[in-house]
């Protein structure tokens, strides 16, 4: 049975299901037991403070403790209050969490989920607004999940918790209240399978996270003029290259939309994949609509100016479909 709930509630449900069905699942982070946090609401009351625990403001220590517990067979869900704060704990994330499996020849694995709120909120400035999934996707050894709606959020988080590898799960702050149809029962969505939200024949638009909504708005706006295919890869690692290449084979044009910094990021990766493996299908240069490498400005007008939106996507589409 499906009903309408929010993105944050969907995330909460996936965690509740996992905590109920698997006693080795635990959850911790700063203020995860605070009653007003929607993505963890009620979990402390149901499962107790042993399994759902507040951690001190020590990202290195508690993320590292997640890695250690995971090595010991616990399945920690560790919450970062904001992705920007993970930069304090880069060693534990990028060295220890990501690479222990490989460096131990696969003898040790790290079944851990690092959940993080991310994204521009309107006036958060550059320490409270970033995406940074490009950094995580760059480092081998972590799966990177960026859900764009409540249904995907619940199904992908269930997959993340069941995955025997470290998964970084990105929750956009501005999607938190987004509503959608979500089944009551537990279900999972496989990683590496893109979702085609609009079929089209003139141009392929690849977008993740909150940008999927903007891409859909752009497609709607161009309806009747330009036929836009919108693809949400849902996971950056693993990436469904196949789906993107198949679409570009049909449309011959590609626009990549990304809220993260443009340089060396997800948008560059998708462009590179298509340049390497689908070049012969391209009828126009690939276009990217991403943050133009500007640290998110505090001023909201400047912030909106550097963020991708439907209008900029429309412009980019019109440029490649001439």
């Amino acid at each position: 049975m499906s009903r309408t709930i929010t993105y944050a509630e969907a995330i909460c449900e996936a965690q509740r299901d996992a905590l109920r069905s698997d006693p080795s699942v635990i959850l911790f982070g700063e203020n995860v037991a605070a009653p007003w946090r929607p993505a963890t609401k009620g979990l402390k009351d149901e499962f107790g403070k042993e399994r759902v625990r507040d951690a001190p403001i020590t990202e290195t220590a508690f993320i590292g403790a997640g890695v250690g517990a995971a090595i010991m067979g616990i399945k920690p869900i560790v919450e970062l209050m904001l992705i920007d704060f993970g930069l304090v704990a880069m060693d534990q994330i990028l060295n220890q969490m990501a690479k222990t499996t490989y460096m131990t020849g696969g003898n040790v694995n790290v079944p851990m989920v690092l959940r993080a709120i991310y994204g521009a909120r309107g006036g958060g400035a550059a320490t409270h607004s970033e995406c940074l999934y490009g950094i995580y996707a760059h480092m081998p050894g972590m799966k990177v999940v960026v859900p764009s709606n409540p249904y995907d959020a619940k199904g992908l988080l269930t997959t993340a918790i069941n995955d025997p590898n470290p998964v970084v799960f990105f929750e956009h702050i501005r999607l938190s209240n987004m509503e959608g149809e979500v089944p009551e029962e537990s279900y999972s969505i496989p990683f590496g399978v893109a979702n085609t939200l609009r079929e089209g024949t003139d141009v392929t638009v690849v977008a993740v996270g909150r940008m999927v909504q903007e891409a859909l708005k752009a497609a709607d706006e161009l309806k009747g003029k330009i036929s836009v295919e919108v693809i949400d890869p849902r996971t950056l690692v693993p990436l469904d290259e196949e789906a993107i290449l198949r679409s570009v084979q049909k449309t011959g044009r590609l626009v990549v939309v990304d809220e993260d910094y443009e340089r060396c990021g997800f948008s560059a990766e998708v462009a590179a994949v298509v340049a390497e493996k689908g070049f012969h299908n391209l009828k126009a240069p690939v276009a990217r609509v991403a943050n133009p490498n500007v640290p998110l400005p505090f001023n909201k007008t400047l912030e909106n100016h550097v963020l991708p939106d439907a209008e900029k996507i429309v412009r980019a589409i019109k440029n490649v479909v001439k």
Partner: protein
Amino acid sequence: MKLGDDKRLDLYRVMVRIRTFENGVRQLINDGKVGYVSFYTGGEAVAAAVSAHLVKEDQIGSTHRPLGHLIAKGADLKRMMAEIAGKATGTNKGKGGAYHIFDKEVGALGANGIVGGSVPMAAGYALANQLKDTDNVSISYFGEGASNQGGVQETLNLAACWKLPMVFVCENSSPEEQTMLGHKIDYPQLSITDISQRAPAYGMPGESHPGWDVEEVYKIAGEAIQRARRGEGPTLLEFKIHRLNADEDSPHCPIKCYRDKLMMDGVLSKELDDKIRSEEAAKVKEAMDFAVGSPEPELVDAYSDIFVEGA
């Protein structure tokens, strides 16, 4: 040590200035001209008393509740208010906001949106002072939550090893019951009662005191700052405070405590108090008008300042 009347009134005036300024920010929030700000209210005695020992050439590193620290250090009220409102005339040209205000002119280096983020940097200010052979010092402000961060612990060690001329000032805002951002945490974030208990572990002196009696803070901070100026190394101070609202009703309100005391001592009269308050209110009003009347940054400004020109 007996404080002169002028000094006492200065301390009082700075505390009033901080509270009045923050109340001005509250008003701009109500008016929809400013978004979210983390307030310093309740800590005024600490910022006022510590900065009373500092000169412009000394530096402070602050937190996500920076306004008191910055104001006491002499940061420009108008440009600060403009920054909080995201205007081009702000200290950071509207790019940083309240969490990231820097006013280099007066050594206010600066607010910080990352909990514990400014502490290692404050060691760098001290290192520069040491290398330049001055007797200037840096102050590193942080909260009890921040005190646990690896970077803070590492900096305590580094400062002691290098005998850096600095003072660590921890403002513990939940001295009775441990909370984080207003949430009563199930597990404590501190397993000790006094942050200064950590000082001997790093080989430096440390003390813990109430932080709402401005003269007490003045005395304790003065000793640590003089010690740093003499080249004898860092000190870890903890002041227990209570985060308060706009009004001055709480028995832990440093402004109320001091006003009562100064009146009892005959240093402050009702008339003088009114005069100080209206003068400070006028400065804050001027800052608010400046902020509201200032232009937004131009769109092209988004792309400048990622690097400075030159080389």
